[in-house]
Structure formats: C-alpha cells, structure tokens
C-alpha cells in the first residue's frame, strides 16, 4: 500500500481528505504512483503533471523519506519505506508567494 499526501488544494479538488492510499503491483516507481493517483482521481490530471508533456508542473515538488525526488525520472524506484507504506510520498506545492 502506497500512502500519498496531497497539498490542500488538490485534496479539495479530489474531494479526499488526509492521505490517499494506492495499491500497486511490482516495482513502485515515481511515475507509477502518479499514474495510479490520476487513475483513482482523474480530476488531478494536469494538476501535478502537464497534460501534454507529462512533465512535473514547475511549482510542484515530490518528497519522500527526507529526500527531494522532484527531478528524478518517472521510472525511478521509490524508497522501500514508501513502497511498503511505512513512509508517505509527499506531493507539495512549492513556496512561491501569493
């Protein structure tokens, strides 16, 4: 079970609270988690990754296990603690003022 923590605006958009839990088979990758998240909550398509390019939106960051995974490629295997659900995968809206 993968635990995903969303920023407040995306929780509102997806009409979910606290963590989103996802069940993935095989190697748990960064892109795989985002694909599964968007499959569960289609309204998040385009809100985390650009719809056309699938690139991370500039003001969105990915953190887990005290590491910044924002610039890792989609096929990056997430830490074991995230894959087992011991630690959450954080999607964070960057501090950008306004």
């Amino acid at each position, binding site marked *: 079970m993968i635990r995903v923590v969303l*920023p407040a*605006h*995306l929780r509102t*958009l997806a009409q979910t609270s606290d963590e989103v839990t996802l069940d993935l088979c095989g190697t748990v990758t960064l892109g795989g988690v985002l694909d599964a998240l968007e499959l569960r909550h289609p*309204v998040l*398509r*385009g*809100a*985390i990754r*650009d*719809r*056309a390019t699938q690139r991370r*939106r500039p*003001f*969105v960051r990915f953190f887990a296990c005290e590491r910044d995974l924002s610039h890792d490629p989609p096929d990056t295997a997430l830490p074991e603690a995230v894959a087992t659900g011991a630690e959450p995968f954080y999607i964070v*809206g*960057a501090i*950008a003022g*306004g």
Partner: protein
Amino acid sequence: MSGVRVLVGTRKGAFILTSDGARTRWEVSGPHFGGWEIYHVKGSPADPNRLYASQSSGWFGQQIQRSNDGGRTWTPVGNAFVYDGVPGTHQWYDGTPHPWEFKRVWHLEPSPADPDVVYAGVEDAALFVSKDGGQHWQEVAGLRGHGSGASWQPGAGGLCLHTIILDPGRPDRLFVAISAAGAFRTDDAGTTWKPINRGLRSQYIPVPDAEVGHCVHRIVMHRSRPGVLFMQKHWDVMRSDDAGESWREVSGNLPTDFGFAMGVHAHEPETVYVVPIKSDSEHYPPDGRLRVYRSRSGGNEWEPLTKGLPQRDCYVNVLRGAMSVDALDACGIYFGTTGGQVYASADSGDSWSPIAEHLPPVLSVEVQTLP
C-alpha cells in the same frame, strides 16, 4: 419579480452576488474555489442555471468547473486543452520565436442555443470549443492556422484570447480578440478567419497600421445590431459599423483613451461605457478619481459618471473582463476593481453603490438577468 445574479471572478476565488429586481439588497456567496484564480464565470443564455467557471493556479494548472444549479454546487469537467497538430511558435516579447504553450483559460462563452456548447479563449492564444458541457475540448484550429499566428506577440498580461462574441443573428459568425494580435472574425463557424483591424493605429509596433499586432483590450456588441462593434484598444476607443471591416476612433473628449473594460447598454445600442485609466504604465484612474464615462451617441461625446464612486485617492484598476450589464429596466451596469470592490448602478450609470467591497482583486464580472 425578476432578479439578478452577478458572477465575480477574482484572484482568490469566485463570488456570486444575487438580488431581486430592485437591486438594493445583495447576498454574497463564496469564495467558491477559494485560493484559485478565477478568470471568468459565465452562464448559459439557454439555461441560466448552467454556469461555467475557469479555475486556474500557477501551482496546479487549469480546471473547468460546471454548475447545473446556478452556482450552488460545481463539478470539475474537462481540462485537456491540446493544440491541434504541431503547435509551432509565436513571437516572444523580444521578437524571437517561442513555442506555443497552454497556460490558462481567460474567457468562456456559452452558446445562446445549447447549454452544452461552450467556447474557451485561452493563453497562449487559441480558441477551443466543447460540445458536451465542457468534458472534452477541441481547438478551433483555423484561427491559429490562418497565417499570421507565428507573428503574434504577447501583451504584458500574456498572449491571451480574452474576448469571444457570438453573433446572435448569424450562428456561423464569431469575433475574437487577442492581446497583442488584434481582432479576428470567422463567417464559417471557425473554419477560416480574417484579421479585422483596418483603421487601428498602434505606435508600439513597427508598422502602426499593420494587419495584426494590435493590443485590443475589449470588444462589445449590442445584440440588436451585431454589425456595430465598440473596442477599447490599449490606447484608443474605436467603433466599427461594418462588423469589423473598418474601424474609426471615437475617443472624443475622454480624459485618457487608455483602458480595459467596456460595456454597452442593454436597451440603447448607442450608449457605451468605458473606464478611462491613466496610462499603460500607470494602471489607475486619472487624478485618483474613479469615473465611468458614458457616451449616448455611440462615441466621441462622453460624460463622466461619478455619483457614488470614490473621487479622491483611488488608485485601482478595472480589468478588461470586469464590466457587464443586466437587462432590467432601467439597465443595470456593474464593474469590479483590483481593489476588490464591485460597484453597481441600477439607473444606467447615473449613480453607483458598492455591492461588495472587500473581495480579492476582481478579474471578471458577468451578469445574469433571471426570470
């Protein structure tokens, strides 16, 4: 008794203001989509309870929201705005090529006949249409493809398609305006387009009377005379009597002809409203006095309307989408400011009062006249 619903888009959410036909007591609901930029909210003329809202964020991109109950509840619909084919490039501010990139929806224009048909004007400039209530969007590609797209250049607010007008008498005729490319018209439902900028002169481009490159801020039309258009250009207030084939300046005695917002009276096609702004680098009213100017002669002769508006120390702006009218008798005029006020006049502009005063900066104001 009939009523009025005012749809207000702001930097931090949408607000809906409602009143009965007397227009003296207002209820405010919102913020809807708090924290998000709401560039535009507009109702369907065919079903007043069908609303569309453009919800966007620098962090989380674009959403389109739809309501079927007049804004009480909302459902996110489609947000895939994918340019047709290989999008190519337009000009960047310095004239170099820059790839076309979708950023946000500035304007939503529902069809007068079918609540499920709605047009979207987007940045970087393009026109999209949905025929299923906003679920799926398809580019009206003839606009960017007509030949001049590669030379379009953004204004300070971005390369935005901010105005869409559907001709009530000719379903195949649409007008759009783009900053800073100009005005365009199709007579075949979007297959082919032509620039309609003859008569515009802009000193900030190499060829002042070029076919495209003009920073058109707003165009308005009275539905009883779809061939007559009024335009607030970056500088200059203009008029066309031939559906945009040619334009002539009608700035007349305005204190400044720079501005953004514009409106036309619901029952008097020659009565037009503008809000003069000091200059393109000083986006506030001249002399710190917020004045709406009204022409009852279709331009050239303008009178200031000040009763109820701040006449000292006022340095707000009124943006291009932030003025609208109702269809009651007497006609109501509404506008919102970057200071978060929404002003209304229930007597065609003779007197004004704030109907909301402390909102986030107002981006757009649309008015629905309810049965």
